[in-house]
């Protein structure tokens, strides 16, 4: 196991040093760091309570007192956007986590063993894939009742086939590589080959898919919350706030703008970091001195 730890530490160090050289990726990382801080400590950091109603300042445009303005009940939009970050991140991470674990496992076995297992698994994935996210969510709500958990499970289930397909496609090409045959020739077990040779070599498309899916999961959560299937009012969520603000587009643009901007910035940050990681995780792009440093 120690060899793996070494290589993992090396990868982390490599990722960090590459980030320092790439300003876009650095920006993305900083944005994500801010988001995490806000997501964890939002309720303490927020200038006012999320449900402090103040009828005197209903629908105020951005000002020094309320930088993002106030909504139709006089609540501080900035505070609500900050607290909502936690919900968005949580939904994104948990739902994509579910999709990643289940989808990669299924795709790995389907692509590695082919045959009937592949057929059965991938047809199931096709069926899942054919369901619109909202329809599936409604079905799941019928079982679990509305709420955050329902939203996360529904989004996770919907994204599973995507990960299964990306994984399977990668496995199909990697398993034909000579180095996989070489591993078979030294007597490595199927599980070892999948874990040690196949998975690391399909990490790049999976990482890109993960960052994209995180972004889309946050958007999906927004849609679900709007339909009342996700976060329940009065708890804030970006999607919920965005859709709530749609009725005030002409008189109070800030109601929709700031949650929308938060979604946009988050999605963009995930994509920037995903692209940078894909580059870093390819050892062929290392120079000799970097590799020496990273494995020293």
């Amino acid at each position, binding site marked *: 196991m120690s*060899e793996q730890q070494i290589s993992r530490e090396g990868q982390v160090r490599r990722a960090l040093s590459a980030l320092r050289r790439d300003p876009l990726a650095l920006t993305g990382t900083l944005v994500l760091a801010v988001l995490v801080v806000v997501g964890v400590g939002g309720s303490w950091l927020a200038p006012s309570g999320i449900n402090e109603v103040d009828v005197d300042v209903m629908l105020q445009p951005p000002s020094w007192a309320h930088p993002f303005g106030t909504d139709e009940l006089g609540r501080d939009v900035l505070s609500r956007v900050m607290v909502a970050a936690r919900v968005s991140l949580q939904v994104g991470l948990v739902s994509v986590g579910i999709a990643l674990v289940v989808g990669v496992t299924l795709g790995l076995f389907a692509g590695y063993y082919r045959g009937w297992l592949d057929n059965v698994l991938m047809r199931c994935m096709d069926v899942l894939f054919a369901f619109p996210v909202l329809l599936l969510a409604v079905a799941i709500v019928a079982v679990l009742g509305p709420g955050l958990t329902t939203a996360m499970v529904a989004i996770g289930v919907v994204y599973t086939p995507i990960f299964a397909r990306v994984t399977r496609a990668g496995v199909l090409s990697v398993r034909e590589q000579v180095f996989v045959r070489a591993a*078979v020739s*030294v*007597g490595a077990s199927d599980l070892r080959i999948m874990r040690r040779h196949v998975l690391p070599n399909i990490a790049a498309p999976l990482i890109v898919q993960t960052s994209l899916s995180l972004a889309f999961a946050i958007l999906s959560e927004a849609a679900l919350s709007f339909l009342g299937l996700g976060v329940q009012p009065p708890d804030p969520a970006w999607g919920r706030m965005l859709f709530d603000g749609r009725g005030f587009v002409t008189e109070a643009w800030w109601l929709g703008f700031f949650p929308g901007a938060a979604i946009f910035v988050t999605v963009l940050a995930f994509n920037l970091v995903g692209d940078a990681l894909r580059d870093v995780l390819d050892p062929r792009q290392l120079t000799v001195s970097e590799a020496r440093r990273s494995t020293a």
Partner: protein
Amino acid sequence: MSERQRADHQLNAAVPADGAHAAVPKQRDPGEVVAELDDLAVWFPTPAGVVRAVDGVSLRVRRGETLGLVGESGSGKSTAGLALLRLVDPTSGTVRVAGEDVTRWSRRRLRALRRRVAMVFQDPQASLDPRLTIGASIAEPLIVHRLTDGGAARRRRVDELLDMVGLRGELADRHPHELSGGQRQRVGIARALAGEPDLIVLDEPIASLDLSVQAQIMNLLRRLQRDLGLTYLFIAHDLAAVEHMSDRMAVMYLGRIVETGTPAQIWRDPAHPYTAALLSAVPVADPQAERDRRRIILSGDIPSPVDPPGGCRFRTRCPQARPECAETDPVLAEVDPDHRAACLFAGEAVRAMRSR
């Protein structure tokens, strides 16, 4: 030892030119059979039909020797090599390793087989996982077969293996792309040595290397064989290399062995018309000899292994084909002691071709 090393590095150290070495054929007691193919057939279903990659091949590899297997693309030589590790499933026939019939072994038992038979691949770049360090690649057989206790012992063994193939220990931390082609192939050889196998299948181990590096790898393989008593199946399309490396050799054409013998027998006295044509097609780095030689140019291409010709498989391209050749499928028959050819007119046909 020191003399050999000096020869390795000295340009002007002449290749033994007195001919004495070549005149005495290598004599060995027929030793214990390490691996054996008996009437092996490997057929692959494809959309175009069933490809008969190997179609009735028998061969034996004895301990401590190098058996050379030479043939062009489509001859089935690589498939025969893969069959010894059971990396392909035989359609019929038997694969025996160290006396045990492994033809029907389960996946689990095959993993143990693959410690006894190791393989070196043609393209050293493709055969190493780009994400693993050199050390991790070499250590894989050690981990899989639990041959070392703990990381420190494993690291020592990897260092030892690197040293055996002439690489510095610090390369263990590098990735394949940081090495030259020759260094990568040394890594491939070190990985094959790790499990102390009974037999190493070398599948075109020098074909994708630069000329100046090919000689290094061939010398290394021969030195390792001398020092460790290794047994090789050396598969290549390069006749001169197979001749140089082998104690005995077999020539394959379209899924069959058409001739076997010592390299000297095959080089001087080919008995099968295909071997003679192959020999005459090999270019020699001597302009005068090239101008003087009479080439036997074969017409056409190797037929499809989906639908091989009936009778003798070579008859469609053979300059000496006669009507009988379409009737009878010739078997390997002795033409000289230890020298066999699968031709109805063995010897005679080649003489006719050469005097034409």
